[in-house]
């Protein structure tokens, strides 16, 4: 329960940390758009900008003082998706010149080996530290045994790797990696309060069409503020109910249902109580919904902010131009 971190801000004093949050958020949106409008193709006009963004992101990361390992860890939740798309692209795109061709066999021996591999992976994964690499290695082995053990064959299929397939697979891989690095750089270098402020000011134009932007921003910041509090309360209730014999590990499914209810209802009740208390506390201190509020921290746009926005706009402009041409 304790390892859930909302907002993964890593304190630091790099220029990326000091950049105005509004600029950072805007730059992220612009760069995301840029990355996605680069067409998936094997032409140089697509590969060069994508590679440039990738290298740029690596430079940004090292200049921000965030350890590269932390950023790469952000890939962890989607490593399965990445591998999957990589192989799909690799095997199902045919075009260009044929690089290699594999004969794979689903045979009694290879199926047996695959089953053993999966069992071995599930058993051994908790002992391995670099799990992403390990997963990739096992995935590779799953195909390798199909190539290696054709004995007592049941079904054979052929996988052809064309150079275009390989390029596209690599291209998509880099694109997803870029997106992850960008977003994690933002969350690593920006506090949630700053981020919230940035969202609020970027949404400001919506005020003209009567969208209550400041109320939405307040809701957002309160939500972020109360996540750790409610997690703490949930932990307390879990322990209290555990003292009354609730145990998810040692009980049957039928009992688990009522045990989850015994957790949900108290947390629900507490949330309402907290909300009421908070509402009163805010009103006592003069908060009126929709009234004009001032801020303690005023953000000022500095030279580096202007420079970065110009650079980002130039990149976006360049990508759009190549696309149009």
């Amino acid at each position, binding site marked *: 329960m*304790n390892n859930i971190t909302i907002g993964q801000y890593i304190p630091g004093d790099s220029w990326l940390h000091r950049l105005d949050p509004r600029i950072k958020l805007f730059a992220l949106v612009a760069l995301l758009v840029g990355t996605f409008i680069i067409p998936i193709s094997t032409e140089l006009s697509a590969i060069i900008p994508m590679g440039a963004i990738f290298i740029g992101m690596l430079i940004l990361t090292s200049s921000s003082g965030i350890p590269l390992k932390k950023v790469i860890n952000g890939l962890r939740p989607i490593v399965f998706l990445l591998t999957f798309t990589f192989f799909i692209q690799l095997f199902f795109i045919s075009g260009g010149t044929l690089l290699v061709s594999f004969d794979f066999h689903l045979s009694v021996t290879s199926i047996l080996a695959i089953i053993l591999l999966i069992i071995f992976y599930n058993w051994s994964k908790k002992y391995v530290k670099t799990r992403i690499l390990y997963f990739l290695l096992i995935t590779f082995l799953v195909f390798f045994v199909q190539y290696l053990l054709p004995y007592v064959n049941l079904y054979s299929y052929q996988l052809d790797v064309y150079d275009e397939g390989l390029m596209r697979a690599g291209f998509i891989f880099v694109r997803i990696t870029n997106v992850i690095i960008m977003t994690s750089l933002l969350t690593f270098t920006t506090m949630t309060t700053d981020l919230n402020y940035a969202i609020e000011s970027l949404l400001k134009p919506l005020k003209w069409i009567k969208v209550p932007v400041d109320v939405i921003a307040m809701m957002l910041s309160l939500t972020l503020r109360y996540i750790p509090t409610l997690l703490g*309360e949930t932990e*307390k*209730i879990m*322990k*209290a*109910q*555990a*003292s*009354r*014999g*609730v*145990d998810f*590990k*040692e*009980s049957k499914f039928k*009992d688990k249902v009522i*045990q989850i*209810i*015994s957790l*949900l*209802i*108290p947390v629900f*009740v*507490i949330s309402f109580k907290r909300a009421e208390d908070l509402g009163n506390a805010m009103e006592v201190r003069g908060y009126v919904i929709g009234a004009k509020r001032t801020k303690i921290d005023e953000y000022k746009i500095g030279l580096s902010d202007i420079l970065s926005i110009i650079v980002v706009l130039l990149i976006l402009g360049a990508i759009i131009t190549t696309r149009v041409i």
Partner: protein
Amino acid sequence: MGIQFQDVSYAYKGFKVNYDAIGHISFDIKAQDEFIAIVGHTGSGKSTLVQHMNALLLPTKGRVVIFDHVLPPKKNEKINYLRQKVGLVFQFPEYQLFEETILKDIMFGPKNFKSSEHEAMEKAKRAAQKVGIDESLYEQSPFRISGGQMRRVAVAGILAMEPDILVLDEPTRGLDPQGRKDLMAIFQEIYEKEHKTIIMITHDMDLVAQYAKRVMVLDNGTLVYDGPKERLFEHPRFEEFHLDMPTPLKILKHLEKEIGLPYKPHYDYPSLLQYLKEVHHE
């Protein structure tokens, strides 16, 4: 043997660093006839300590032995049953209520520990009677009664499991004086009539003086005093424990200083009054 701590330490895992909550704590608690108060500052590790007593937390170093069951357990060893033997009432236990009716909520504990519906009902009714919940309230919602009564229902929820040892984390916190008195009377009765061991965290030194037989003082995660309460208040280093004197002792000390009344420890108001009357008659 009830609960045994052998050089127990516990560290909370933080980001990069671990925070030591308690360190190198050893003591024995008998399974019967003990009334122990655990006192100490906020953040001194009291709550962490008591959560070891029913295996909610497992020691990061050292061993806890609960009814001959050694903790930390081996892999796949069942420890849930220990929570029936050592009943732990949390701070503000009224937040744990969730059932439709009061009786059903009290039955939740025994049912989790494999009591049949009928058995659980019997146990729940006995527990409700002990804490003074009127029969007319059994079918009411636990969310529609007063705070003091909710607290009692929650305590009954633990008592219904019929634990051998009862652990209470600040049971009287947030109650009015009458509610505090009533609740303490319930624990006192369980201690006297059923001879169960009661372990109680509290900040109220008056309660310590009046009810506890043995006191443990925690300071910054270490056990600085463990012994009978009589000796605690006479302890030469009492000042260093940063504890308050109980009111009856304060009165007696004051009287000794102001009018030279001979100091004799009395731990509750009736016996203090009795003593003052005796002195007056002499």
